């Protein structure tokens, strides 16, 4: 019994599916952000697994990409939570069913 690339790919696919379910179905803005962080983590595991298992001339390029993904994810989380606070201050709720100003 051994652990191969396929194990990591299927595992990160499971994480991605859970994150996608949360993004598509949750009512609360912070829950949707939790789902987005799960998506980022699933993709990062895939990058690290390919960097480890697949032979290439640019070794560790996958890991460098993960560092940039983590950087952008941190910036995204800060801005998105600031926007959630702003929506709560203006509308009195962060339930996405209630935030329907653009709905005709």
């Amino acid at each position, binding site marked *: 019994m051994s652990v191969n690339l396929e194990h990591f790919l299927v595992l990160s696919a499971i994480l991605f599916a859970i994150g996608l379910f949360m993004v598509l179905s949750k009512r609360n803005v912070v829950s949707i952000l*939790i789902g987005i962080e799960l998506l980022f983590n699933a993709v990062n595991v895939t990058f690290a697994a390919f960097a480890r298992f697949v032979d290439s001339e640019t070794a560790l390029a996958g890991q460098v990409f993960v560092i940039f993904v983590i950087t952008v994810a941190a910036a995204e989380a800060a801005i998105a939570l600031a926007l959630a606070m702003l929506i709560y201050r203006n509308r009195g709720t962060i339930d996405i069913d209630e935030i329907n100003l653009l709905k005709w």
Partner: protein
Amino acid sequence: MDDTGSVVAFWALAVLTVGSALGAAAVRDLVRSVVCLVATFVGVAGFFVLLSADFLAVAQVLIYAGAISVLMVFAIMLTPRAERNNAETFFRWPALAIALSLLGTIAAVALTTDWATTGQGFEETASVIGNALLSTYVLPFEIASVLLLAAMVGAILLVQED
């Protein structure tokens, strides 16, 4: 990765990560959901160690399990108790169907493709990544620093009271 330690570590981390991710999606209270999310982040850091990405594991624990989860707890605490539920909209079952079909597609592709894999891991990654960031990837590195500055100023500007 044929040795027993790697196999045991993989399955233990897989149970921890997937279980706590399912918990984050299933629990009703948002604070508990964030706690489950921290467990998921720690499990992913364990996967990075298993994939001989030690620098990434440290960055994962510092940034995700440390900073981002604290930021989320702050956002939850700044909204009232009534806004702390983790319920789904009417879109629950279609979303579940979409997520499961995507999972099936990715898993089928991953299992049927013939990946050209090699066996060995990396000896040491931190110094190689440091050199790469300041030579090959210096332009994205500088852009990332400007992006972080812009995000910080933007977040402060968005939430400041008049």
